[in-house]
Structure formats: C-alpha cells, structure tokens
C-alpha cells in the first residue's frame, strides 16, 4: 500500500481544523495511520484512491468530511495554446499521450516533495511500474512549443535528467539504473518514444527518464505535465489526478491539444464522473431510512454532487464504477462511526463440517496418547523434503518465484516436516513424541491432488517400530474401530526390514517404520526415531 507523509501543522492549516481532530478523522476517510510522532504522521492509502496521495488531496477530503468545504470541487481550465503532435510510428510502442499546463505556481520544498511522492505512487500503482502509465513533470519556461511525441532510433542522443553530457537511447537502456529497471517495456522494439520541443530540446524519454533541460524546482512557476500510456483511459485518469492536485496547490490549469494523425483531442477533460443515483439502493445497503436531503448532505461531505437522479463524482475519483460506489460515499459522509450496528438474528441452524470434526477428534486422541501436536508449514524446502531422505525430487510441486527457498515446494508427506521440527528441538528433553494433522500435495496430470494425513514420530534412545505400532493401533481403534494389518514393505522414509505398509479392510492407509540412520543423521537428530504416516481421508471413508 502506498504511503504519504503528512506534516500535521501544514495539514491543519490546509484543513482549517485542529491536529487532534484531524488525527481522529483520518481513519474515517479510509487512511490507515502507519506511524506518527508529534509533528508528522505517515498514512497508508488504498491504491484505488491516488487522489489521497498528497496532503493537498487529503486536506480536500477532510474539509468535506468536517463540513469546512463541501460539494463537488470544480476545476476551471483554459486552452494553453500548446499542441503536441503525435508520430504515427508510436502506435505499437507507447501510443497515448495526455498533457496539461499549470501556471501561477509558488511551490515550497514540501510542495515539491508531495508532488514527486504522488508521481512515484502513480508510477507504481496505476502505472504498473511505469509499464502502463508514466508521468513527466517539466518547467514550461524551458520549453518552446509546439511539442512532438515522436519515434527515434536507439542511436538518438540527449542529456538525461541530472546528466552532464548527451547519452544515446541505447546507452540509457543498458547502462542506467532507470534503463535497466524499466527498459523491458520496449521488448524488441526498434524505435523509442521521446517528447521534444520545436528547438529539439528533449523533455522526456518515457517511461524511462526525463531530459535535464526542463527539470522542475521550487523556482518553477509554470509546469508542463506529460502522461504517456498504453491505454488512453489509464493515461487520462492519471492526468486527471495530477491536474486536480496541481489545482489544489494553486496552479491555474491549461489544456493541451494532442494531435494524432487522424484526430485531435484536448486534455485534460475534468468533467465529473456520472453514475445513476439510486436512493433506494443507498437506503437498503446502508440500512438507514435517510431522507433525500440528508443523503445529499452526506454526498456533499464526500465531495460529491447530485444532478436529478445522477450522482456526480469529481474527475479524480477513478474508483467510481457502479451505483454502490455512491452508497459508500453516503456512508462515509454520514460518518461510519455514527451508523449503529444491528445484530442479524439467525434463521439457520448451522452445522460443523463432519470431516473437520473428524480431524479435530484425531488431534484429541493423539494428544490423549501423550503426543505433542505440531503445525508446520506446507511449503518447505528441497533438502528436508527430498535430499535428507535420499529420494528423487522428480514429482515435486514447486511455486514460482518464492521469496524464500525455505518455502519453495509443497510437501507430499508430513514425516519430513516433523523430522525438521525435531531437528530444531534437539536441546529439549527426550523422549519426544509428536504428531501433525496436515494437508499434503501430490502431482496429478496437470494439477495437484490434496490429501489430509496424520504423521507421527517418536524419538528417544529406545524408540522402536513396536512403539510406533502401539500408537498407530490405538489411534485406528479409537477413531474408527479398525484393526490394522502391517505387512513388510519398502518406503523411502523408513529402514528396510523395519518398515511396513498399513492396511485396514484391505485398504492401504500408509506406512510405518523406523527412520533410516542416514535420515536421522541428515537432520542432526542424535537419537533413534520411528513413526508412521496415514491418509486420514481414507481412514474417514472406512469409518463411514
């Protein structure tokens, strides 16, 4: 979740309310306080609300909720007279561009910090790490319109941001941090997009890096914003958020004409988003029979407007998809903490799942037999699962890109996990008797099958096959009234000659035996161990 840092005194001034009141209300516009000190607070905002990505945006919402300034914010735009000519060769590379101008700015350091932080969040969120959308901010005073958004070859050179001499597109892609991080968006393209002005000054090589000539500083009074994207809608959304934020900062907005080979668009379009306004839906979803006037008041506090049976959302609200989204705005404007909970009485009898009940009984019986229950991870590592048992890993089920190799493959048995658990407890008193009831996975055609197993290990100087069998017989008898049969068998977990298959009513349930010395050694457990593993789903079937 993106985070924005708020200076409390600055925010209090923007909102026109005390710091205490603001801190109390932040959660009620959907912001989670991550950390706070006496001067500032860091809040997490939902990725669907990038308009809350600066203190200006948060202040705008808080002024509404606190009744200081309510209703739909209006945004005036005037044509800037600037045109961007789009090269048709970019259609397959990065087809869309949307721009705006903000003039009359007077930015301080914190303003610049907030805007840059919003730009980064937009890159990572809606921009999908700049792949879908990228933003460039420029000092308009350094630009000579008209501009062109054009395709250039990899030999094209310009001075990148904070650079001293010209670099080629190719060298930026291969040698710079930005190029290596974001360059893969071009795949195998032979042409690359740049935005340049009538004098040939390069503003940007989207989505990689800006040019150095048009860098924004606190001295910037007139700002030019470019948004390039792979979808027109995403680009328009991001531009709307930036433009309306710059308007809050005090900028006067100017539109830019985007001239495609076959059409011309004017951006940004900041007309409100319209959704059907359904009073009955509002009342039934919230569960409050509010009069229309009060509902309108709630919407106004959420910075929404209403025209007849149409709800109007400010253009920066990119999260409004369905009339239920209007319902939530009413609830927020009303105040979530003012809504009184009602407990819904139950008309249904309810029931526990019989197999879950069975698993719970297995736990009770095993604990009663003197065993400690373990709950280990289903995702484990190759060493404990395969290598320590000297068995091939050809049937393994692995996950893609695990963050830790300790959790990279799904277990196909519980014994390895229990052995790993014992290896972490060699300093605890022996005898150690443990069990686990857990899910295991086996490969099947192009999917996996899941089973519930019971695994059990006893480890101490006298641990033996017989002791394991004693527990196994008791468990099967107590849980299912079954007498089990053990027949000499081979299994990767157990020593040859000290291993048997377990069957009941001629149904194979699992295996029992003494652990191989090599395995015990591989896990660093210094005492003999024996145990068993059976399929609880099958045991349950036999019970029924």
């Amino acid at each position, binding site marked *: 979740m993106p985070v924005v840092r708020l200076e409390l005194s600055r925010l209090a001034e923007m909102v026109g309310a005390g710091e205490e009141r603001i801190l109390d209300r932040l959660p009620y516009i959907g912001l989670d306080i991550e950390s706070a000190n006496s001067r500032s607070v860091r809040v997490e905002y939902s990725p669907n609300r990038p308009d809350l990505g600066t203190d200006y945006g948060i202040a705008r919402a808080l002024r509404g909720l606190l009744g200081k300034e309510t209703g739909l914010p209006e945004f005036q735009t005037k044509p800037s007279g600037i045109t961007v000519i789009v090269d048709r060769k970019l259609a397959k590379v990065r087809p869309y561009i949307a721009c705006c101008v903000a003039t009359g700015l007077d930015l301080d350091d914190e303003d610049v910090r907030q805007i840059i932080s919003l730009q980064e969040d937009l890159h990572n969120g809606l921009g999908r790490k700049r792949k879908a959308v990228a933003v460039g901010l420029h000092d308009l005073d350094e630009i000579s319109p008209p501009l062109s958004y054009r395709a250039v070859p990899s030999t094209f050179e310009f001075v990148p941001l904070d650079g001293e001499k010209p670099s080629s597109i190719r060298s930026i892609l291969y040698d710079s941090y930005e190029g290596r991080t974001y360059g893969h968006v071009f795949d195998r393209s032979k042409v690359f997009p740049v935005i340049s002005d009538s004098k040939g000054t390069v503003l940007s090589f989207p989505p990689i890096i800006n040019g150095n000539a048009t860098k924004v500083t606190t001295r910037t009074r007139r700002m030019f914003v470019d948004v390039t994207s792979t979808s027109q809608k995403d680009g328009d959304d991001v531009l709307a958020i930036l433009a309306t934020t710059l308007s809050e900062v005090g900028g006067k907005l100017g539109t830019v004409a985007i001239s495609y080979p076959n059409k011309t668009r004017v951006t940004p379009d900041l007309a409100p988003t319209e959704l059907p306004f359904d009073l009955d839906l509002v009342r039934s979803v919230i569960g409050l029979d509010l009069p229309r006037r009060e509902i309108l008041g709630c919407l106004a506090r959420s910075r929404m407007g209403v025209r007849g049976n149409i709800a109007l959302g400010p253009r920066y609200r990119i999260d409004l998809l369905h009339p239920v989204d209007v319902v939530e705005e009413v609830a927020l404007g009303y105040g979530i903490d003012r809504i009184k909970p009602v407990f819904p009485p139950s008309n249904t009898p309810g029931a526990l799942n019989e197999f879950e009940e069975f698993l719970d009984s297995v736990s009770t019986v095993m604990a009663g037999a003197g065993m400690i229950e373990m709950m280990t991870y289903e995702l484990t590592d190759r060493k404990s699962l395969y290598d320590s048992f000297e068995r091939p890993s050809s049937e393994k089920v692995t996950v893609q890109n695990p963050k830790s190799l300790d959790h990279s493959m799904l277990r196909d048995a519980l014994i390895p996990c229990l052995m790993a658990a014992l290896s*972490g407890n060699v300093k605890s008193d022996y005898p150690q008797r443990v069990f686990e009831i857990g899910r295991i996975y086996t490969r099947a055609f192009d999917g996996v099958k899941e089973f519930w197993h019971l695994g059990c290990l006893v480890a101490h100087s006298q641990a033996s096959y017989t002791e394991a069998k004693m527990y196994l017989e008791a468990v099967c008898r107590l849980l299912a009234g079954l007498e089990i049969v053990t027949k000499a068998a081979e299994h990767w977990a157990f020593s040859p000659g000290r291993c048997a298959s377990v069957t009941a009513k001629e149904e194979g349930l699992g295996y029992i035996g003494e652990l191989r010395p090599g395995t015990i050694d591989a896990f660093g457990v210094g005492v003999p161990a024996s145990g068993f593993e059976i399929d609880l789903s099958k045991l349950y079937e036999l019970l029924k």
Partner: protein
Amino acid sequence: MSNALHPLERRVLAALAPLGSAPFEALVAAASLNEDQVRRALQWLASKGLVSIGSSVESRLELVREPPELDLVHQVSQAPAPLTVGELRGKFDSPDEFSAAFGRARGSGWIKVDEGPAQVVRVADAAGIESLRSVVRSIAAGKAEDDMTSEEAGIVSDLLKRGLVRRVETRTTTVAVTDKGRISSSLASDAHLIDRLTPDILASGTWRGRKLRPIDVEAKAPSFFPGRRHPVRDFIREVREVYLSMGFTELQGDSVHSAFWNFDALFIPQDHPGREMQDTFYLDGLSDAALKRSGVVAKVASVHEDGWKTGSRGWGYRWRLEEARRLVLRTHNTVLSVKALSETKEREARVFAVSKVYRNENLDYKHLAEFYQMDGIMVGEGLNVRHLMGFLTEFYKKLGMAGVKLWPTYFPYTEPSLQVVGYSKAFKSWIELGGSGVFRPEVTQPLGVRVPVLAWGPGIERLMLMRFGLEDMRALYGSDLSWLRNRGELAGS
C-alpha cells in the same frame, strides 16, 4: 524438610551409625555405594541435621627437583683432582644450568675460584652448603613445614619461589553421625515398617498392624510432558463453535484453486497490483486447462471488460483466459465462500471456513507465508451494512475482543468495505484484525445471486498473539517443543 529418608540416605546412615565418624572414603566402602550416591545422600542427610560433615586441609612440601648447586658443590668436593671452571662446566649437560648453579654457589660463598689463569674451583664453605642439603633431605623425608626452624623456613621459601619445591594440599572429609541421626537411623532400620506396598503384602494381609515407612513428600518428582493439542487448533475449535452458535455452516475446500476463483470471480482485475500485492504463490507449470470462457466464467469475464449487465463500468481491459487458468495457493478463503455461492441457490445462507491461506512473503514478526483466516459470508434479503457491523461486533466479542471499531477501507470485491480494528495494549495502538464488506454486484450477479451478501475474512494469528502475549507470529508455528509443552493451557481461552 521432611524427616523421611530416601533409600540412599538410609543405607549411608546405617553404615555410618556404628562407626560414629569416618572419613568419606571409608564411608563409601562401608556403605557399598558409589561416591556420587554417598555424596548425594550425605548432602540430604546434612540438610536434615542427621550428619555433620567436617573437612580439613593438610598441606605438605614436595621436592620437584634437586637444586643444581648441590650437585655442583658435590662435583667439586668429590673430584679426585681439583677441577678448573672449564672442566666443571663439562660435567653439566646444559651450559645455562651450569651458569645458574655456578653463580649461585659462588655468590653464596660456598665455592671460590683461585686467582690466576688456571681458574681452579675449590669448596669454600662446606657448612653453608650443608644447611641447604639438609633442608632438601628433610623435605624429601616428609618433614612438616610447621616443624622447621626459621632458617630452614627461609630456605624453603626461596626454593618455593624457584619452583624447586611445591606445596601440595590434600582435603580430607570426615563425616560424623549426630544424635538426631542416631535416632533416625534406628527408626530407618526398623524392619516393621513397610517400604513399598506390594500385591503380595496386600494378598497376604501382612500389612495389618504395620505402618508405611515415611517418605520425602516434598522431594521434586521427575519432569513429565503430557500430550497436547496445538494452541492454534484449540483456537480454531473455539472459532468454529462461535460460528456454530451464530447459525453458520462450515465449509471445507482445497488450497489450490485457479486464479479465476481466487481473483477473477472477486472482480480483481488481471493486471491489478492486488495480484502481486497479495504476493501470490503460483504453481510452477500447472494450470486449469478445463476452465473455458462459458457459463459463470464468461459472465465474470464480461464484468471485467465492460461491467456486463451489472450496471458497472467494468475495468475496461481485455480479459485473458490464460491468466485465469493459472493455479494458485489461495490467498484468501473468500474463494471458498464464492464457490459456495456459485453452487447454492439458497436465498438465505450463512457459511464459514477456518483454513490456511498462502502469501509469498518473507517471514518476519508480523508476516507469515502460511496462516489461518476465518472467513464467512451471510446471504439474505434485506441484509445491510448495519447487520455486517452488528455481526462483526458480536463475533469479536465472543472471541474475547470487546470494543472493536470499524473503519472504512478498500477491497476490489466489496462496497462498502470495512476493516475491524481492535486496541492492542501491547502496542498501545489500534491493530487491524480483518477486512469485511458487502459483495459488489460485479461479484454476486455473475454467480446468479440477487440478494445482498455480507463477507469478511479476518486472520486468527493477531487475535492469538494478543491472547498469548506474544509479539512474533512465527512463535505460533515455530514447532518449539519447549513452548508447546509448557505454555499455560488457559492463556488461550
């Protein structure tokens, strides 16, 4: 401390009583036990005041090496003809040792060297060297330090410094029976008392008129670790019973699902950071080939693209079947609720599942790759946000977490969305306990559900940490036997 005696104590006391007092070694022999057993028994007996233990330290001198100057003077005096310094040096193995001995003998005035080029060595003070010799002899003979004259003591102290003589200390332990011990001993050997009740004694009736020999009822018993259920299992049991008491039916389902059911059916767009944000485990090289764009799948696909007929704008992108076919370890149990919704045509239902979810996380004190969620849904005509709030408040109260607050939040599949927060005394702040909301029409309508669905999916670990006073989630699944064996049973209830 009880006066009852352990068998070892009885044996030692019986051996000691006739002797009155004895050195430790003699007692070990008399009791026919090993040293450790006798030592332990004596410790217990002494603490009961039945024996007294005294120890004394004796020190004696031991000759490490003869002073080399004795040998040197001896060589000089015994030589058939006078020796020169050079000849004398030749009789020593080490030139260093010769120099030291020669220097010392000459410095003490025991020998002198004639003037002149011959350098003949002669004995100068035979009596002087004799006093050193006599001290060395008496040390070898075991003469005690206390019996030495002050002159002898001076020589000894010099020899000690030079490391030619050392002091050896021996400690002797002597044990004596006390009066109380004598009485106890006679009682302990009373053959009339029964040591241990046996079936034979019971059968024969020989117990009649006899008493059991008192034992030490205050002694520590050996440690013992009863079998136990896992605390997480107990907590899950409790959650299931709370759900049952509120009229819910339990679901069970697989951990592996197609991305379709885990994400698409919940209106999570295919390129949403949510699919990364939730740090999903996708199974390597496996997919649900049976998933086709028809029926529910087709409806969900349309909802993503343009809202289908739900009244939504949709996400406005081209939905891809391949992405939906990928197999994932479920990132939330809402997938079970949604599958249940798609299968039931009931207009009223309450279902829940307490099971594992999986996230591709680096493990730390507040993140696990596998953990439990206790998801539920409530389906029914007329259900609304207030019912959701009412249910959650009551549910958490029943789980021991009174006074939860509800804050707005965001999930792609619910609107409105609320998160439950509870106050943590340990962290002195409000902690997120779980998300909830009313399913969006984009979720319910493709499944053919026309009535409101309230849904929630809280984790159980944070609640458990608060109960057990733990600060690290990894502790719950760390398989630490010491904790599993010794944790307080009631901490979790």
